[in-house]
């Protein structure tokens, strides 16, 4: 038999029992739509979770702190100290998936002087590895990225407005830097052209000590990143300079806690989220407690996983019911057509053709059900997105963060997958009935009146 003829006979049979076919298809539509909607809820949940987290920062950055907390098996917080030193940094550099590692040191006791007259005092300066700077994803609005060993000073977008002449008294800080309408006044120094140096200082017994001046080779302005406040309010310098200022400061204050080569914070930039997770696991094995947003993501995902399983289960159940519906329809149809099938066998219709005919019938039911199921789920998804609140579902809301996001997302692959899936469900449901059809006795069929 030609495939075309098998198809047209199968379709003819479906058309003959329009109502029954229609009802069976409805079963599949509901089943398919249920599964699609449930999965779409899960996808939307994960998406809103990821949105929430990436709003909080970069998932590929892992932060190590000297003072860390861990939660033990009983759920109690445990104090823990990590030893963060150059040796560890070198070790981490060699791990797979690490793009960049740098200690983050910071100093408040500093002043930045521009053109000798204008000063910026007490702004926190972060010291970071020159090479790591670019790799951590910082961008410059003005200036070039530093090379290894170069000294640099990069200003957050809000910082360089604050240069002022320290000899002039200030009556009102707001008026000093802002217009009455709240917009910042133009900076007093054009740092792109200014001659700039940094120095440390310390207050001791009411006396101000000033330290060595450090010239910088590269000056730049950071490009502001939406979810990183540091690009706005911080200043970055090369770690060597900051370390020098810190050790001078420690000496002046007789601070014995300061140990050169040890850091309070080390940050790691991973190639992607998966490597970030791997790196964290490796560090845990090394006895280092880490903090990364992916930890948070994991625990939230775990919470959502259970909910998604339940939703998926409900969807699957309704599709199973639909599958039974298809099988039932096929059995009924074979029962009705016993004689016809027997006659066809006597007339020389091959067993494989009979089987294909029934499999096509059931697959077509599945296919059509799948297509309309997709349509129905789009409608359901649209209505849910319109009338439901995303934070009422999923755990992102539980963390007190409400992001504007969809309740239900149906990606194209889900559409494709569900149509294929319901067709396959139809095929499977039709399999046993089709085998039964091929076993119908030709003799019995022509004997019975």
């Amino acid at each position, binding site marked *: *038999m*030609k495939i075309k003829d098998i198809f047209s006979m199968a379709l003819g049979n479906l058309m003959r029992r329009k109502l029954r076919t229609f009802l069976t298809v409805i079963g599949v539509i509901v089943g398919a739509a249920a599964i699609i909607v449930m999965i779409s809820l899960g996808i939307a949940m994960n998406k809103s979770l990821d949105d929430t987290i990436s709003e909080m920062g970069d998932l590929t950055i892992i932060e190590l702190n000297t003072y860390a907390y861990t939660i033990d098996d009983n759920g109690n917080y445990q104090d823990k100290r990590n030893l963060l030193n150059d040796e560890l940094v070198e070790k981490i550099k060699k791990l797979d998936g690490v793009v960049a590692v740098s200690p983050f040191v910071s100093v408040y006791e500093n002043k930045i002087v521009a053109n000798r007259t204008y000063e910026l005092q007490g702004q926190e300066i972060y010291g970071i590895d020159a090479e790591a700077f670019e790799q951590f994803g910082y961008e410059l609005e003005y200036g070039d990225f530093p090379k290894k060993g170069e000294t640099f000073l990069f200003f957050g977008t809000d910082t360089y407005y604050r240069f002022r002449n320290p000899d002039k008294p200030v009556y009102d800080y707001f008026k000093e830097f802002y217009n009455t309408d709240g917009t910042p006044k133009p900076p007093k120094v054009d740092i792109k052209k200014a001659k700039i140096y940094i120095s440390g200082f310390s207050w001791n017994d009411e006396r101000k000590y000033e330290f060595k001046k450090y010239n910088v080779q590269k000056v730049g302005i950071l490009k502001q990143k939406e979810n990183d406040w540091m690009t706005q309010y911080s200043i970055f310098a090369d770690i060597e300079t900051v370390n020098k200022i810190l050790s001078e400061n420690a000496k002046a204050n007789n601070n014995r806690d300061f140990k050169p080569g040890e850091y309070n914070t080390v940050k790691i930039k991973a190639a992607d989220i998966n490597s970030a997770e791997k790196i964290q696991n490796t560090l845990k094995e090394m006895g280092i407690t880490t903090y990364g947003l992916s930890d948070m993501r994991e625990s939230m995902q775990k919470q959502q996983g259970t909910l998604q399983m339940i939703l998926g289960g409900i969807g699957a159940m309704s599709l199973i019911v639909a599958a039974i519906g298809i099988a039932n329809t096929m059995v009924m149809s074979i029962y009705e057509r016993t004689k016809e099938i027997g*006659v*066809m066998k006597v007339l*020389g219709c091959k067993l494989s053709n009979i089987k294909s005919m029934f499999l096509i019938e059931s697959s077509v039911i599945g296919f059509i059900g799948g297509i309309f199921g997709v349509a129905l789920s789009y409608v359901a998804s649209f209505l849910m997105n319109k009338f439901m609140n995303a934070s009422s579902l999923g755990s992102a809301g539980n963390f007190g963060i409400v992001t504007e996001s969809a309740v239900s997302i149906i990606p194209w692959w889900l559409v494709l997958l569900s149509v294929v899936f319901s067709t396959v469900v139809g095929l499977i449901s039709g399999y046993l009935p089709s085998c039964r059809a091929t076993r119908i006795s030709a003799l019995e069929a022509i004997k019975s*009146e």
Partner: protein
Amino acid sequence: MSEPIIKVDNLRKVYKLGTQKVVALDNINLEIYPGEICCILGTSGSGKSTLLNMLAGLEKPSRGNVFINNSSISQMSEKELVDFRQKYLGFVFQSYNLINSMTALENVTLPLVFKGKNKNFRVKAAKNILKTVGLSSHLNHKPSQMSGGQQQRVGIARAFVSNPSVVFADEPTGNLDSKTTDEIMKIMLDVAQSFGQTLVIVTHDRDIASYANRIFYLFDGRICYDLHVNKELYGNREDLLHHIQEIFDTEKQKISQSKENSEVE
């Protein structure tokens, strides 16, 4: 003479009903040659249908073999049998067995559809044969819109459309009146003879048997007479019928005598 197209070798069929055994056919040996119009004649329950079903491979014999075109169909699997039927055999049924949802034309094209012929060929062949059986004006009628005689003509057209070597017919006129029976028989014979096909008809009606040129008389599951009819010997059908009557009467007498004898012994 040429090779027989159907050869039956020591065929036996026993039905088991619980502990009881029913010997439906026993010791059947026959050879049918291409182009013969055969009739299996016998009273009700003599095993005619059983024999036909076995000749056509619809039922397995308890013992013995059936060969068609030198292939032993008794040894074939279900799948092989279907293929074989598709290639070589045609069927006409007492109750027509048309597909109710299909038109006359569609019903007739069915065997060609199964053979995988393309649509143009199918429709042309079906229209041709429907014309031969005189149904050109009923191509698009569904079975429910036709009389019994018309339905059986569709059935005949369907049996012959794929040009099979052998056509089997079990009581093809069983549901028809005598006038229509005559028409149907003539059509069947015409078609079969014009294409040189072999026809095997089962009937209990001697009238119908008189159309054949070979008559097997079946009694109690045995062939007790194998009559080659030389049509030229008889002036008309009445004479032939009379002859058949004579033969069967003597046969019956013989059988009952032998039974009495065996009982006496």
